[in-house]
Protein backbone atom coordinates (compact mmCIF):
# COMPACT_ATOMS: atom_id res chain seq x y z
CA UNK A 1 0.00 0.00 0.00
CA UNK A 2 2.76 2.40 0.97
CA UNK A 3 4.70 1.41 -2.13
CA UNK A 4 1.67 2.19 -4.29
CA UNK A 5 1.19 5.58 -2.69
CA UNK A 6 4.86 6.48 -3.11
CA UNK A 7 4.77 5.38 -6.73
CA UNK A 8 1.63 7.42 -7.38
CA UNK A 9 3.21 10.46 -5.74
CA UNK A 10 6.36 10.06 -7.80
CA UNK A 11 4.34 9.78 -11.02
CA UNK A 12 2.30 12.83 -10.07
CA UNK A 13 5.43 14.86 -9.36
CA UNK A 14 6.98 13.76 -12.66
CA UNK A 15 3.84 14.77 -14.56
CA UNK A 16 3.69 18.11 -12.76
CA UNK A 17 7.37 18.79 -13.44
CA UNK A 18 6.91 17.93 -17.11
CA UNK A 19 3.89 20.19 -17.35
CA UNK A 20 5.80 23.05 -15.76
CA UNK A 21 8.75 22.47 -18.10
CA UNK A 22 6.42 22.52 -21.10
CA UNK A 23 4.60 25.67 -20.01
CA UNK A 24 5.69 28.73 -21.97
CA UNK A 25 8.11 30.90 -20.01
CA UNK A 26 6.92 34.45 -19.92
CA UNK A 27 8.80 37.59 -20.82
CA UNK A 28 7.99 40.46 -18.42
CA UNK A 29 8.93 43.11 -21.01
CA UNK A 30 6.41 41.73 -23.48
CA UNK A 31 4.05 41.26 -20.58
CA UNK A 32 4.22 44.95 -19.69
CA UNK A 33 2.96 45.92 -23.15
CA UNK A 34 0.30 43.23 -23.13
CA UNK A 35 -0.80 44.28 -19.67
CA UNK A 36 -1.21 47.89 -20.76
CA UNK A 37 -3.13 46.95 -23.89
CA UNK A 38 -5.33 44.19 -22.49
CA UNK A 39 -5.65 44.73 -18.75
CA UNK A 40 -5.04 48.46 -18.53
CA UNK A 41 -8.59 49.56 -19.22
CA UNK A 42 -9.74 48.05 -15.92
CA UNK A 43 -6.57 47.63 -13.87
CA UNK A 44 -3.56 49.60 -12.70
CA UNK A 45 -0.63 48.45 -10.63
CA UNK A 46 -1.21 50.91 -7.81
CA UNK A 47 -4.83 52.05 -7.99
CA UNK A 48 -8.14 50.27 -7.60
CA UNK A 49 -10.21 51.09 -10.67
CA UNK A 50 -12.90 48.97 -12.33
CA UNK A 51 -10.72 46.09 -11.14
CA UNK A 52 -8.34 45.85 -8.18
CA UNK A 53 -4.76 47.13 -8.07
CA UNK A 54 -2.26 44.54 -9.19
CA UNK A 55 1.06 45.33 -7.57
CA UNK A 56 1.69 42.47 -5.18
CA UNK A 57 -0.97 40.25 -6.72
CA UNK A 58 1.52 37.43 -7.30
CA UNK A 59 1.63 35.43 -4.10
CA UNK A 60 -1.41 37.20 -2.66
CA UNK A 61 -4.60 35.49 -1.55
CA UNK A 62 -7.45 36.18 -3.97
CA UNK A 63 -9.90 38.89 -2.98
CA UNK A 64 -7.63 40.71 -0.56
CA UNK A 65 -6.38 43.85 -2.34
CA UNK A 66 -6.88 46.66 0.14
CA UNK A 67 -9.85 48.96 -0.48
CA UNK A 68 -11.35 47.07 -3.41
CA UNK A 69 -14.99 45.89 -3.29
CA UNK A 70 -14.75 42.31 -4.51
CA UNK A 71 -17.63 40.06 -5.50
CA UNK A 72 -18.68 37.59 -2.79
CA UNK A 73 -17.37 34.82 -5.04
CA UNK A 74 -13.88 36.27 -5.19
CA UNK A 75 -13.85 37.12 -1.50
CA UNK A 76 -14.68 33.52 -0.74
CA UNK A 77 -12.26 31.98 -3.22
CA UNK A 78 -9.54 29.96 -1.56
CA UNK A 79 -6.88 30.80 -4.10
CA UNK A 80 -3.36 32.12 -3.85
CA UNK A 81 -2.25 33.75 -7.08
CA UNK A 82 0.75 32.04 -8.67
CA UNK A 83 1.67 30.96 -12.19
CA UNK A 84 -0.75 28.05 -12.25
CA UNK A 85 -3.73 29.82 -10.69
CA UNK A 86 -3.27 33.01 -12.67
CA UNK A 87 -2.93 31.01 -15.88
CA UNK A 88 -6.15 29.16 -15.18
CA UNK A 89 -8.02 32.30 -14.15
CA UNK A 90 -6.94 34.39 -17.12
CA UNK A 91 -7.94 31.57 -19.46
CA UNK A 92 -11.55 31.63 -18.24
CA UNK A 93 -12.21 33.56 -15.02
CA UNK A 94 -15.84 32.61 -14.58
CA UNK A 95 -15.10 28.91 -15.02
CA UNK A 96 -12.52 29.02 -12.23
CA UNK A 97 -14.42 31.37 -9.90
CA UNK A 98 -18.12 31.22 -10.71
CA UNK A 99 -19.64 34.54 -9.74
CA UNK A 100 -16.54 36.65 -10.33
CA UNK A 101 -17.30 39.87 -12.16
CA UNK A 102 -14.38 39.44 -14.54
CA UNK A 103 -15.33 37.94 -17.87
CA UNK A 104 -12.25 38.92 -19.88
CA UNK A 105 -10.37 35.94 -21.30
CA UNK A 106 -6.76 35.99 -22.41
CA UNK A 107 -6.89 32.94 -24.61
CA UNK A 108 -3.32 32.78 -25.93
CA UNK A 109 -1.06 30.73 -23.56
CA UNK A 110 2.11 32.61 -24.52
CA UNK A 111 0.44 35.96 -23.86
CA UNK A 112 -0.82 34.73 -20.52
CA UNK A 113 2.68 33.63 -19.59
CA UNK A 114 4.06 37.06 -20.50
CA UNK A 115 1.45 38.89 -18.45
CA UNK A 116 1.98 36.58 -15.48
CA UNK A 117 5.75 37.11 -15.70
CA UNK A 118 5.13 40.86 -15.63
CA UNK A 119 2.77 40.63 -12.65
CA UNK A 120 5.32 38.47 -10.83
CA UNK A 121 8.08 40.98 -11.58
CA UNK A 122 5.94 43.86 -10.31
CA UNK A 123 5.05 41.96 -7.14
CA UNK A 124 8.62 41.56 -5.89
Amino acid at each position, binding site marked *: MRWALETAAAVWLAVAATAMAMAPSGDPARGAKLY*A*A*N*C*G*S*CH*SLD*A*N*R*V*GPAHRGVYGRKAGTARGYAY*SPAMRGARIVWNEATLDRFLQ*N*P*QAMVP*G*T*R*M*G*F*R*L*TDPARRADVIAYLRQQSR
Partner: protein
Amino acid sequence: MIEHYSSRRGLLRATGTAALSAVAIGILGDAPALARAAGKEPGVAANAGDIDILNVALGLEHEAIEAYQIGAESDLLQKPVLDLALLFQGQHKGHRDALAGTIGQLGGKAVQPKSRADYMTSLNIAAIKTQADILRLAQAHELGAANAYIGVMPSLGGKALAQVCAKIAADEAAHWSLLTSALGEALPKPAFMFG
Protein backbone atom coordinates in the same frame (compact mmCIF):
# COMPACT_ATOMS: atom_id res chain seq x y z
CA MET B 1 -20.49 53.04 -38.99
CA ILE B 2 -19.66 56.17 -37.01
CA GLU B 3 -22.11 58.16 -39.08
CA HIS B 4 -24.72 55.46 -38.54
CA TYR B 5 -24.33 55.88 -34.78
CA SER B 6 -23.87 59.62 -34.76
CA SER B 7 -27.10 60.04 -32.86
CA ARG B 8 -27.45 58.57 -29.41
CA ARG B 9 -30.98 57.55 -30.20
CA GLY B 10 -29.72 55.58 -33.20
CA LEU B 11 -27.23 53.70 -31.10
CA LEU B 12 -29.80 53.01 -28.44
CA ARG B 13 -32.23 51.74 -31.04
CA ALA B 14 -29.62 49.44 -32.60
CA THR B 15 -28.19 48.06 -29.38
CA GLY B 16 -31.59 47.92 -27.80
CA THR B 17 -32.86 45.69 -30.58
CA ALA B 18 -29.98 43.29 -30.13
CA ALA B 19 -30.30 43.29 -26.37
CA LEU B 20 -34.04 42.81 -26.53
CA SER B 21 -33.62 39.69 -28.59
CA ALA B 22 -31.29 38.42 -25.89
CA VAL B 23 -33.70 39.03 -23.03
CA ALA B 24 -36.96 38.51 -24.87
CA ILE B 25 -37.80 35.38 -22.91
CA GLY B 26 -37.42 37.17 -19.62
CA ILE B 27 -39.32 40.28 -20.65
CA LEU B 28 -42.17 38.42 -22.29
CA GLY B 29 -42.49 36.21 -19.26
CA ASP B 30 -42.65 39.31 -17.06
CA ALA B 31 -39.94 37.77 -14.90
CA PRO B 32 -36.50 39.28 -15.29
CA ALA B 33 -34.99 36.27 -13.55
CA LEU B 34 -35.92 34.23 -16.58
CA ALA B 35 -33.40 36.19 -18.56
CA ARG B 36 -30.72 34.74 -16.32
CA ALA B 37 -32.01 31.21 -16.46
CA ALA B 38 -32.29 31.46 -20.21
CA GLY B 39 -28.52 31.35 -20.42
CA LYS B 40 -28.74 27.57 -20.19
CA GLU B 41 -29.34 27.56 -23.92
CA PRO B 42 -26.01 28.67 -25.42
CA GLY B 43 -26.11 31.39 -28.01
CA VAL B 44 -29.75 32.22 -27.44
CA ALA B 45 -30.03 34.33 -24.35
CA ALA B 46 -28.23 35.86 -21.44
CA ASN B 47 -26.75 34.09 -18.43
CA ALA B 48 -26.19 35.28 -14.89
CA GLY B 49 -22.60 36.31 -15.55
CA ASP B 50 -23.69 38.63 -18.36
CA ILE B 51 -24.96 41.23 -15.92
CA ASP B 52 -21.62 41.30 -14.13
CA ILE B 53 -19.69 41.53 -17.39
CA LEU B 54 -21.90 44.32 -18.71
CA ASN B 55 -21.52 46.19 -15.43
CA VAL B 56 -17.73 45.99 -15.72
CA ALA B 57 -18.09 47.41 -19.23
CA LEU B 58 -20.37 50.12 -17.88
CA GLY B 59 -17.69 51.00 -15.34
CA LEU B 60 -15.26 51.45 -18.21
CA GLU B 61 -17.67 53.77 -19.98
CA HIS B 62 -18.22 55.85 -16.82
CA GLU B 63 -14.46 56.23 -16.50
CA ALA B 64 -14.03 57.23 -20.14
CA ILE B 65 -16.82 59.82 -19.95
CA GLU B 66 -15.27 61.42 -16.87
CA ALA B 67 -11.74 61.29 -18.31
CA TYR B 68 -12.89 63.15 -21.44
CA GLN B 69 -14.77 65.64 -19.24
CA ILE B 70 -11.66 66.28 -17.17
CA GLY B 71 -9.71 66.75 -20.39
CA ALA B 72 -12.30 69.14 -21.81
CA GLU B 73 -12.26 71.25 -18.65
CA SER B 74 -8.47 71.29 -18.41
CA ASP B 75 -7.97 74.09 -20.99
CA LEU B 76 -5.18 71.95 -22.42
CA LEU B 77 -7.15 70.74 -25.44
CA GLN B 78 -7.15 72.96 -28.51
CA LYS B 79 -9.60 72.80 -31.38
CA PRO B 80 -10.08 70.54 -33.32
CA VAL B 81 -8.79 68.07 -30.71
CA LEU B 82 -11.31 69.39 -28.19
CA ASP B 83 -14.14 68.74 -30.63
CA LEU B 84 -12.85 65.22 -31.21
CA ALA B 85 -12.72 64.56 -27.46
CA LEU B 86 -16.29 65.77 -27.02
CA LEU B 87 -17.44 63.66 -29.97
CA PHE B 88 -15.86 60.57 -28.43
CA GLN B 89 -17.32 61.43 -25.03
CA GLY B 90 -20.78 61.62 -26.59
CA GLN B 91 -20.32 58.17 -28.09
CA HIS B 92 -19.20 56.79 -24.73
CA LYS B 93 -22.40 58.24 -23.27
CA GLY B 94 -24.29 56.32 -25.93
CA HIS B 95 -22.48 53.12 -24.90
CA ARG B 96 -23.27 53.90 -21.26
CA ASP B 97 -26.96 54.31 -21.93
CA ALA B 98 -27.15 51.16 -24.04
CA LEU B 99 -25.31 49.08 -21.45
CA ALA B 100 -27.31 50.45 -18.52
CA GLY B 101 -30.56 49.79 -20.40
CA THR B 102 -29.53 46.24 -21.21
CA ILE B 103 -28.48 45.56 -17.61
CA GLY B 104 -31.88 46.77 -16.46
CA GLN B 105 -33.65 44.55 -18.99
CA LEU B 106 -31.67 41.60 -17.70
CA GLY B 107 -32.91 42.30 -14.18
CA GLY B 108 -29.63 43.75 -12.93
CA LYS B 109 -28.68 47.01 -11.28
CA ALA B 110 -26.42 49.28 -13.27
CA VAL B 111 -23.28 50.46 -11.48
CA GLN B 112 -22.99 54.20 -10.87
CA PRO B 113 -19.97 56.35 -11.70
CA LYS B 114 -17.36 57.00 -9.04
CA SER B 115 -16.64 60.48 -7.77
CA ARG B 116 -14.50 62.98 -9.67
CA ALA B 117 -11.93 62.71 -6.88
CA ASP B 118 -11.72 58.94 -7.29
CA TYR B 119 -11.11 59.27 -11.02
CA MET B 120 -8.55 62.01 -10.49
CA THR B 121 -6.58 59.63 -8.28
CA SER B 122 -7.02 56.36 -10.14
CA LEU B 123 -6.21 57.93 -13.52
CA ASN B 124 -3.28 59.88 -12.06
CA ILE B 125 -4.62 63.11 -13.52
CA ALA B 126 -2.05 65.12 -11.54
CA ALA B 127 0.61 63.88 -13.96
CA ILE B 128 -1.15 65.40 -16.98
CA LYS B 129 0.46 68.64 -18.14
CA THR B 130 -0.09 68.86 -21.90
CA GLN B 131 -2.59 68.11 -24.66
CA ALA B 132 -0.41 65.17 -25.70
CA ASP B 133 -0.65 63.75 -22.17
CA ILE B 134 -4.44 63.79 -22.42
CA LEU B 135 -4.35 62.21 -25.87
CA ARG B 136 -2.07 59.43 -24.61
CA LEU B 137 -4.36 58.75 -21.65
CA ALA B 138 -7.34 58.58 -24.00
CA GLN B 139 -5.41 56.47 -26.51
CA ALA B 140 -4.45 53.95 -23.81
CA HIS B 141 -8.00 53.85 -22.52
CA GLU B 142 -9.54 53.28 -25.95
CA LEU B 143 -7.06 50.49 -26.78
CA GLY B 144 -7.74 48.79 -23.47
CA ALA B 145 -11.47 49.18 -23.89
CA ALA B 146 -11.49 47.73 -27.41
CA ASN B 147 -9.48 44.75 -26.19
CA ALA B 148 -11.67 44.39 -23.11
CA TYR B 149 -14.86 44.18 -25.16
CA ILE B 150 -13.25 41.64 -27.49
CA GLY B 151 -11.95 39.67 -24.52
CA VAL B 152 -15.31 39.30 -22.80
CA MET B 153 -17.24 38.15 -25.86
CA PRO B 154 -16.50 34.42 -25.33
CA SER B 155 -17.82 34.70 -21.78
CA LEU B 156 -21.19 36.12 -22.76
CA GLY B 157 -24.16 33.77 -22.79
CA GLY B 158 -25.86 35.19 -25.86
CA LYS B 159 -24.72 36.02 -29.37
CA ALA B 160 -26.86 39.16 -29.40
CA LEU B 161 -24.99 40.53 -26.39
CA ALA B 162 -21.68 39.62 -28.00
CA GLN B 163 -22.77 41.55 -31.08
CA VAL B 164 -23.50 44.61 -28.93
CA CYS B 165 -20.00 44.33 -27.47
CA ALA B 166 -18.54 43.96 -30.97
CA LYS B 167 -20.26 47.18 -32.05
CA ILE B 168 -18.90 49.05 -29.04
CA ALA B 169 -15.42 47.56 -29.58
CA ALA B 170 -15.50 48.88 -33.15
CA ASP B 171 -16.27 52.38 -31.84
CA GLU B 172 -13.37 52.15 -29.36
CA ALA B 173 -11.05 50.94 -32.12
CA ALA B 174 -12.05 53.90 -34.29
CA HIS B 175 -11.37 56.26 -31.37
CA TRP B 176 -7.94 54.68 -30.82
CA SER B 177 -7.05 54.99 -34.50
CA LEU B 178 -7.96 58.68 -34.64
CA LEU B 179 -6.14 59.43 -31.37
CA THR B 180 -3.08 57.59 -32.66
CA SER B 181 -3.22 59.70 -35.79
CA ALA B 182 -3.64 62.89 -33.75
CA LEU B 183 -0.48 61.98 -31.81
CA GLY B 184 1.40 61.53 -35.09
CA GLU B 185 2.09 57.87 -34.35
CA ALA B 186 2.16 55.12 -36.96
CA LEU B 187 -0.28 52.24 -36.88
CA PRO B 188 1.17 48.80 -36.07
CA LYS B 189 2.25 46.79 -39.12
CA PRO B 190 1.05 43.34 -38.00
CA ALA B 191 -2.52 42.27 -38.52
CA PHE B 192 -4.89 41.82 -35.59
CA MET B 193 -4.23 45.17 -33.96
CA PHE B 194 -6.78 44.39 -31.27
CA GLY B 195 -7.68 41.42 -29.13
